[in-house]
C-alpha cells in the first residue's frame, strides 16, 4: 500500500484579529468571509485577495461576538452578529463596509455560549455552475440568487418551489432566527423583520418521556433551525443540551418536542444539518462525533455513525453544501475532515496552535475556513468538487 499523502497546508491564513476568533461564516454568494472575535470585532475579508475589507467593533470588547451568520434567508447584503452582551445585531453591508449603526438590534437578554442559528433551507444538490466563483463578483448587483441556486437536470419539483419561496422570503418573508433564550434552557425563535419573539420552545413545560428528567438537560448549548420542504413554512429546530441530549422541535408545537435522543455524554456544542435537511452531524464536549439522520415522517432521529476521537471536544461542525464531506473544529487545535456519507476520517489538519472554534464551508464547496483562538483564520481547499 502506498504511503498516504501528507495532509495539506492551508491555502491562506487570514491574520488581523487581535483576539480569539469565535465564529466564521462565508457569504452565501460573494467571495466574502465574516469573522467575529471575542473582543467584539467583526471583520469582513475578501477571500480572493485574502485582505480585510472592513472591520468594526460591533459588540463591546468585554463581551465579544459569539456568532456571525449570513444566509440568503436574511438577505444577501445582511450579516448577523450575536454578542455575549445579550444582543443580536443585523448589519447592512451594501456599501461594502460595515455601517456605524446596525440595521436592527434585538435584545434577547441571553448571556450564554450558544450560537444562534438562521433557518436553513434544503437545497437538493448544490452544484456550482460552470462559471468560476469569482466571476460573480463583477455582477454582484445583477446576479440573482436564482442563478446561484440553479440546479441541474436532476432537481426536484419541491426544490424549485423552495427556491421560489426563498427569493420571496429573502425580501419580505419572515426571517426566523433560533436562539437559546433568556432562560438558557429554552430555545427562542425570533423574527428579524419585526424583531419580535415568535415562540419559546421549552422542554421544562412538557411531561415528556419519564426516562429523561427535564431538570437534567441543563442549558441549551447548540441550536439549528431549518425549514424542511414538507413543513409548509414552519420551522423545525434541533437543539442540543448540556447533558448531551438533543431535542427536535416543531415550531407549531412548542410544548412538546418531536423526539429526544441522547448520543453524547457531555454538552452538545454544535449541530449542523446537511443540505437536504435529512441528517446532520453533532459535536460535543465528549470524545464522540455523531452522524445522524432525521426522518420527518416518523419524527425519528437515528444515529448513523458514531466517530470516536482521540481527544475530546468539538466546538464547531460544518457540512459542505454538497453533503460529501464534513469538518469539525476541535479543542485539540485540529480540524478534521470526514466523509459525511460513510463517516470515515479523511484528514487531520494541523495548523492552528490554539483551540479551533468554528469551521465553515463556502457555498460553492471550494473553500473551507477554520477559526481559532490563535487569532487566525485558515482557508483550506480540500477535495474540491469536480466540475
Amino acid at each position, binding site marked *: *500500500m502506498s*504511503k*498516504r*499523502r*501528507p*495532509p*495539506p497546508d492551508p491555502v491562506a491564513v487570514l491574520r488581523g484579529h487581535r483576539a480569539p476568533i469565535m465564529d466564521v461564516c462565508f457569504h452565501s454568494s460573494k467571495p466574502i468571509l465574516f469573522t467575529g472575535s471575542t473582543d467584539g470585532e467583526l471583520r469582513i475579508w475578501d477571500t480572493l485577495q485574502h485582505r480585510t475589507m472592513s472591520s468594526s467593533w460591533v459588540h463591546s470588547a468585554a463581551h465579544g461576538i459569539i456568532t456571525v451568520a449570513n444566509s440568503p434567508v436574511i438577505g444577501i447584503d445582511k450579516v448577523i452578529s450575536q454578542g455575549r452582551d445579550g444582543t443580536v445585531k443585523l448589519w447592512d453591508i451594501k456599501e461594502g463596509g460595515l455601517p456605524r449603526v446596525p440595521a436592527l438590534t434585538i435584545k434577547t437578554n441571553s448571556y450564554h455560549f450558544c450560537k444562534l442559528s438562521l433557518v436553513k433551507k434544503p437545497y437538493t444538490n448544490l452544484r456550482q455552475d460552470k462559471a468560476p466563483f469569482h466571476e460573480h463578483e463583477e455582477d454582484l448587483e445583477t446576479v440573482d440568487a436564482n442563478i446561484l441556486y440553479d440546479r441541474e437536470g436532476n432537481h426536484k419539483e419541491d426544490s424549485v418551489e423552495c427556491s421560489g419561496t426563498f427569493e420571496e422570503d429573502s425580501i419580505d418573508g419572515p426571517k426566523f432566527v433560533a436562539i437559546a433564550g433568556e432562560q438558557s434552557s429554552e430555545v427562542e425563535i425570533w423574527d428579524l423583520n419585526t424583531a419580535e419573539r415568535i415562540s419559546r420552545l421549552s422542554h421544562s413545560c412538557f411531561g415528556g418521556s419519564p426516562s429523561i428528567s427535564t431538570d437534567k438537560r441543563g442549558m441549551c448549548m447548540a441550536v439549528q433551525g431549518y425549514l424542511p420542504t414538507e413543513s409548509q413554512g414552519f420551522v423545525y429546530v434541533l437543539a442540543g443540551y448540556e447533558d448531551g441530549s438533543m431535542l427536535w422541535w416543531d415550531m407549531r408545537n412548542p410544548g412538546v418536542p418531536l423526539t429526544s435522543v441522547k448520543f453524547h455524554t457531555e454538552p452538545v456544542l454544535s449541530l449542523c444539518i446537511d443540505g437536504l435537511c435529512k441528517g446532520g452531524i453533532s459535536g460535543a464536549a465528549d470524545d464522540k462525533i455523531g452522524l445522524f439522520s432525521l426522518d420527518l415522517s416518523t419524527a425519528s432521529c437515528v444515529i448513523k455513525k458514531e466517530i470516536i476521537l*482521540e*481527544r475530546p471536544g468539538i466546538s464547531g461542525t460544518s457540512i459542505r453544501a454538497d453533503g*460529501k*464531506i464534513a469538518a469539525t473544529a476541535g479543542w*485539540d*487545535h*485540529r480540524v478534521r*475532515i470526514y*466523509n459525511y*456519507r*460513510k463517516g*470515515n*476520517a*479523511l*484528514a*487531520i489538519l*494541523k495548523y492552528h*496552535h490554539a483551540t479551533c472554534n468554528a469551521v465553515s464551508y463556502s457555498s460553492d464547496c471550494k473553500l473551507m475556513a477554520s477559526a481559532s483562538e490563535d487569532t487566525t483564520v485558515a482557508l483550506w481547499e480540500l*477535495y474540491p468538487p*469536480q466540475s
Partner: protein
Amino acid sequence: MEEEAKRRRREVGSRVLDKVGEVISAIKTAKHVDQVICSLHSLAVLLFPLDPSLISGSLDEGYREQVLNANIPSAEEREEWWQAFYRGAAFPTLARVLLFDVASNWLPCFPYSAKERVYDAFFVSGLSTEVVQILVPCLQPNGNDNLDVNAVQSNSERLLLLCFLENDGVVQMAREFGSAHQSSDFTSAQLKPVLSRVAQIVASIPDKARPKASTSLSSHFFFKHITLQLLDEVQERVKNLPKEAIFNESGSDVTMLFVGETFSRICRRGFSDVLLGEVIPQVLGDVQWCLSSCSDPATEEVFEANPRSQFWLRMMEAINDSYAVERMSEQLLHQLAIEQATNIEAYWTLWILFNRVIKNQPSVRSMFVYKFLLWKVFPICCLRWIIQFAVLECPPVANSLTKGCDAHVLLDTVQRLVAAWSKREFVQSAPVEQQAYVTAAIGLCMELMSKEELDKSKDVMHSILQGVSCRLESPTHLIRKMASNIALVFSKVIDPKNPLYLDDSCIDETIDWEFGLTKPEKRALPSSNENDEAKTLTISEPEKDLNYSRNNGIGRNNKGENKKASQFKLVDPDEIIDPATLNYGSASDRDEDDEACENSDSSSDSSLQPYDLTDDDTDLQKKFTQLVDVVGALRKSDDADGVERALDVAEKLVRASPDELTYVVGDLARTLVQVRCSDLAVEGEEESVEEKRQRALIALLVTCPFQSLDTLNKLLYSPNVDVSQRIMILDIMTEAAQELANAKSMKPKHQSTVLISTISENQPWFLPSSSGPPGAGAWKEVSETGTLLNYSNRYERELPPKPGQIRKGKTRRWSLRTPNMQENQLEWTQNKFPIYAAAFMLPAMQGFDKKRHGVDLLGRDFIVLGKLIYMLGTCMRCASMHPEASALAPPLLDMLRSREICHHKEVYVRKAVLFAASSILVSLHPSYVASAITEGNLEVSKGLEWIRLWALDIVESDVDKECYMMAMSCLQLHAEMALQASRAIETAETTFKAKNVGLPSILSKGTIRIPFSNVEY
C-alpha cells in the same frame, strides 16, 4: 669414676692450653712461614687426623723433618684433646691469633695444602657453634691494631663460606646442639640463650659481610642455603627417629628449637620470602601427596598420621617469635596465592603448619582472626583461606567456603569485623584497599550465616545498618558499592527470596568482592586460545547461514516489487521457495485493487482519498514563550507535565536573554533550584530532567551572572535547601564559571589613537604623513613604468569609505559593515569570567564554617564542602593570569589554610583542597608572585609557602593514594611557579640595577623555596 673423668679432663685442658700458648709464642716469634706452619701443625696433629706427608712437600728441609717426625696420637687421645680445645678457652685464644695475626701476616705465604690442612682445619673441623661465635665478629674488626683489615675480613669471609656452604655448618650446629642436649650436659633452659645467640649470629652473617664479598654471602643466597640445609637435616632426623619418638610431643627437640630459632631470625631480617620459597614447595608436596593417597575427602587423621606433617607442626611450634610467625604466615599466604593453590590445598597447608599453634598460642589465633582480617590486605583468595582455616575451622568442600558445626567463632569474628567496619573513622581514614578487604571479609562471613545466628547478637545488625548508611553517603563510588554489596548479602541472609539491590550494577548473582581493585593477572594459556579459535571457527558456520537466510528474508520481502529480479538472483539451489511468499506481492496488489473498487463504488466519493491520518500531540502541549510563565509553571509542583515542559524551554528562553530576564532572574533561579526533578520525571528519565534544570541554571548564570549569583549564594547557605540542592548549586556554578571562561565574544577593537602627535614618526621622512582617518592603509609607491627618472614620487594608500559612502561590489552582501571593518576593528575577546570571579567566589566563601540549622559543611555535609572548594579552585583556574586571580588568591588561601579544612578527616575534602591549592599555583601570574615577594606581601608569600609545606605533609602522611598523587603534582606546580617567579625577580633586579635603584630591603621577608637549588629569595 666421675671424679676421675673430671680430673682427667682438667688435666687435658691445661695441657692443651700449654700447647696453645707454645704455638702462639712460636707464631709470634716466627721469622719464616714454615716456622708458623710447623708450629700449627704440631697442634693440629694433636686435634685432627692429619697426614703430614700432604703438607710436607711444600716445606723446607728442616721443617719437613720436624713435621714428619711429629708423633701422632691415638684417636681417643685426639678426641679428648679436641673436646678440651674447643670447649675450653684454648680455641678462642688461638683463633684470635690465627684470624688476625696469621691471616694478615703469614697466610698469603701459606702453600695451598698447608693452608687447607693446618689453618682451615681449625675452623672447618671444629665445633661449629664455637667457631661461628669467633668467626663472625672478625667480619667487622675494629681497626685499632696495625693489621691488614682487608685481609682479615676476606679471610673470615672465606672461612665462613667454607664452614657454612661447603661443610653444612648449620647442620653441624644443629647436631651439636642435639647431642649436647642428649648428653645432658646442659638442660634446654641453659641451652636456649646459647642457641638463640648462635642463631642470631648466623642470621647476621650476610649483613656483616662486606658488600663486595662473594655473592654466596649475599642474604638471599646464604639464607636459601641455610634453609635448605636445615630442612634436609631435620627431615632426615625425623625420618630416622622411631615412630614413638615422633609422636612424643613432650620431648622438645633442641635441634628443632635451633631450626626454629634460625628461621625466625631469618624472618626478622626480612627474608621470609626466601625461607618460604623453600618451605612451601615441600609442604605443598606433602599435602598433595596426602590428598592423593586418600581418595575420600581428606580428614585430619590422614594428616595426623603422616610423619612429615608432624615435622611441620613441630617446626612451627619451635618458632616462638610471634613477629616471625606473622611474617611467615603472611608470606605463606601470598606465595600460595601466587602458586594458585586450590582452596583445599591451601587449607591443608595452613592446617599442617598452624593447626597446633593456633590452638596452643592465643597470639597466633588473634593474628589470624584479628590482624589478618582487619589490618592486613591479602588477595581475596587468601581471605577465603583465612576464613576457612581460622574462622570456620573445618576443611573446605569442593573449593567453596564451608561452614563447620561450631559457629560461635564465625559469629564472634563477624561481630568484631562489623564493629570496626561500621565506624565512621574507619571509612574516613582507612585506605580503600583495606576497606574493600574488610568489606569482603564481612561479606564472605555473612554469606555463611543464617538469620538465627544473626539474630543472636543485636549489635551486628545495628552495626551493619550503621556502616551501610554511612558508606552510602560517601562521594566515592567504590565505597558506596561496598555498602550496597553488604546490604545485598545482609538482605539475602534475612530473606533469601527478597534481595535488596541498592545499586543497579550488581544485579548478577555473585558479588565481586575484589571491587575491581586487583587487576587480573594475565596468564598465558596457549591451549585456551586455541580452543577459542576452534570455537570461533565452529561458530562462524551457522552464523554465515544465519546471515544468508536473513538476506533471503529481505529478498522475499522485496519480492512484491522486484520479483523478477530476485528470481534471477537465486543462488542457493536448495532453497525452498514458498509459492505463497512469491505470490504475496501480487496478492496484496489485488487487495489494493479491491479497495480501489470499493472506493469507486460510489463514483462521487472517488476523490475522497484520505490523507495521512497520523497524529501526535507534540504541538498540543503548552509552549512557554515568556519567562514569567516558566516561573509560574515551575512553581506548580502538582502539574508535572507543565514543570517538565517549562524545563524544556527554560534554557532556550534564558539564552535568548530577553529584556524581562533581569526582572525574573531571582525568582527563576530560586524556583529552578527548588524544583523536585525526581518527583515529576518518569522512572528512568530523572537524569534528563535534572540535566535540563541544570542547563537552564547554567544559562542563567552565564547570561545574568550578578543577579543570579546573588540568589544562588543566598540559597547555598539557606536552611531551606537540602544537600543535593547545595551540591547542584555548586556544580552549576562550576560549570557556569567554565563556560564564561571559554566564552568568545566579539567586540570592537579599541583603537589606540595617538593623543600626542609626534614629529618623529617611525616612517621615512619622504612619505606623506600617516595621519588620516582610522583604518587607512599604508602608503605605497605608485610604480610608474616608462621613465627611468621621475622627479615626483607618487604614493597611494587605501582609505576606508567615508560615512555615507556606500561601496558597491559585485557580490551582494547583506551587511552595512565593510569586511575591512570586521577585520580591523573587531577582535575576539576570550574569558568573560574574571569580572565575575569575585561575585562567584567571595559570597560562597563567607559562610562555610558556620554551623546553622541544616547547614554543617565542616561536619556532616562534607561533600558540599568538597564541592565548594572544588568550585573555588575552578574559579581560580578560570580567572588564571588575570589580575582578579591575584586579588582573590589571598582570601582563598586563608580559607584553605584553616585547620578544619586542610586537615579535614574526609579524603574528599582534602582532595578538593589540593585541587584548589594547585589551581592557585597555576593561576597566579609569576610577576604578581614576584612583586608580592619584593613588596613584602606576606599574605601571598606565606600562603604559597604554606601550600608547599602542607603538600609535603600530605605526601608524607596521607593514607589515600590519590591524595598523595595530587600532593605530588601540587609540589611540582609549586616548584614551577617558584622558578617562574624567581625569573621574574631576576629580571626585576637587573632593571633595578640598571636604574641604580637598590632592591627594597624587605625583599628578604618573603621566601620562595625552589627545590633542588639553594637559592632562596
